[in-house]
């Protein structure tokens, strides 16, 4: 008869904080977002908390464009703050999810531009894409990473890099990408298999 938290996203239960039975001094991200609905200043506190992490992630993924993408992620987050699910005290998965979408759009746009160049016969070899990893992203990742991630589909790669670079756990990645937990597990499993195969084939690259 009680259908609280009956939504199908299993990670919701796992992300609710269980370790704070009493009020603590600093507000949670969820509190800041709730407060920011009527006081935008509260959102700047959220920015201060998470800018470095988001900036670093976007910069690693998109190079110099990462700064604009990270900044845009916070602007988008501000516009969506009223829809934030307050059960999630940590806003990092939400922010990284927004950034991941923007990164995907960024690379998609770059790919379209590259295709235009191809059509106009002004082919730039650095923008040629093969497999799932398009040219610009491959260029930004560098040759070693690009080789390892080359055959990994975009969706799998997004999940893997959120795990390896953003330090999100599986449940948080599920929330960030708005996909079921099982899908996250399978995507990351596939992606890791590819990376391991690459490392097995190239033992000199191993740490």
């Amino acid at each position, binding site marked *: 008869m009680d259908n*609280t938290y009956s939504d199908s996203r299993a990670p919701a239960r796992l992300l609710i904080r269980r370790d704070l039975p009493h009020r603590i001094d600093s507000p949670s991200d969820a509190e800041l977002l709730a407060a920011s609905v009527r006081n935008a200043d509260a959102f700047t506190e959220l*920015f201060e908390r998470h800018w470095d992490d988001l900036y670093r992630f976007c910069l690693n993924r998109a190079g110099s464009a990462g700064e604009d993408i990270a900044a845009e992620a916070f602007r988008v987050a501000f516009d969506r703050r009223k829809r934030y699910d307050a059960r999630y005290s940590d806003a990092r998965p939400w922010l990284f999810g927004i950034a991941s979408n923007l990164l995907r759009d960024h690379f998609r746009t770059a790919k379209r531009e590259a295709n235009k160049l191809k059509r106009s016969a002004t082919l730039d070899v650095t923008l040629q894409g093969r497999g799932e990893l398009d040219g610009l992203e491959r260029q930004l990742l560098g040759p070693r990473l690009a080789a390892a991630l080359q055959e990994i589909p975009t969706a799998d790669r997004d999940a*893997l890099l959120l795990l390896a670079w953003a330090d999100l756990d599986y449940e948080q990645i599920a929330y960030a990408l708005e996909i079921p937990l099982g899908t996250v597990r399978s995507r990351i499993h596939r992606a890791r298999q590819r*990376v391991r195969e690459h490392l097995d084939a190239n033992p000199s690259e191993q740490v």
Partner: protein
Amino acid sequence: MNMSNQDLNWLSNQQPQRMGTDHGARERALLALVKHTTSRPRARGFSLTGRLRAPYFSAVAVGGVAAVTAALVLSAGTGVHSGAGTGHLKPHTHSPLAGTHRSPLVRLADYVGASTAPTGDATLVARTTTNGSNTVTVYDLYADNGQYFFSPTESGLAGQVGANNNLAGGLFAREVAAAKLAATGNVQTAAEDMAIAPDPSKTISPNQPSNTTADRAKEAATGEAQTGSLYDNWVWENSQDALIAGSGQPDVRAGVLQILATLPGVTVTQGSSDGQPTLVLSAGTPELGSGYTEQLTINADSGVPIEFVGGAPGATPTAQVNYQVSRVTLANLPSGSAGGSGA
């Protein structure tokens, strides 16, 4: 196949590490963010009441759900109310009651203020938030002595009370106090108290020219004077918090209604929801600016909140919260299984 985390370690070490020494990036992004935020109208969105606290509570209750033994003395209905939130939001147009909105609100305030004290020593608010296709009900328990308890399940409240997991911390205390002051007749002072209740260090008054950076930016962007809007916005938003937190106390409800009656943009329409008469209070441009509106539905006989909706005028609400209010006695809450236990 090597099943260690060597692959992840390798990936982590392969990060391009483009994090340079460009400290200006943070400042540039923050400036862009501030410009963006100050160009938008202030809005309430989801109910602040309770949602501010919810993440602090650990329990995702499991096990049986026992109904709280409650003396229902306030709510005129017991079901989930369907009101303005099920349709499109009305734009900022003057209703037939516009211009005379003070009368129905003040009349109701007088009626509510004269009602007898309720039984019990706490108010239980079952709060149902609809966000897209998701609907979540959580439970807020406001004790008359100022304590506040939260549980994602009704049965978990007893455990929270037993563990003394009081989360009040002063939140909404000043809002409730301002409402009680208004109920004594000092409405204008109470409204000014309500405006700054979340942060009494701020100073603002109805006649104070707006001079914040945000308002200056907004004036520059829209060409519209912002004088007074910030005050009206704060009073509108904080009054709603007070009304929810004090929904079980007639003097609080009466005071909030008195305060809302002072706002220039609030219009009132009569309606019904699940067979009970309602008043729908719509905030206007002075309270929320253009492009966004909010409506608060209350019981027309008791002033008890029923529903909050917010969104673009004429559009489907982007925020909808339903309230079911009842009075309870803390000592008589049935034992539940939550009490801080995890899922």
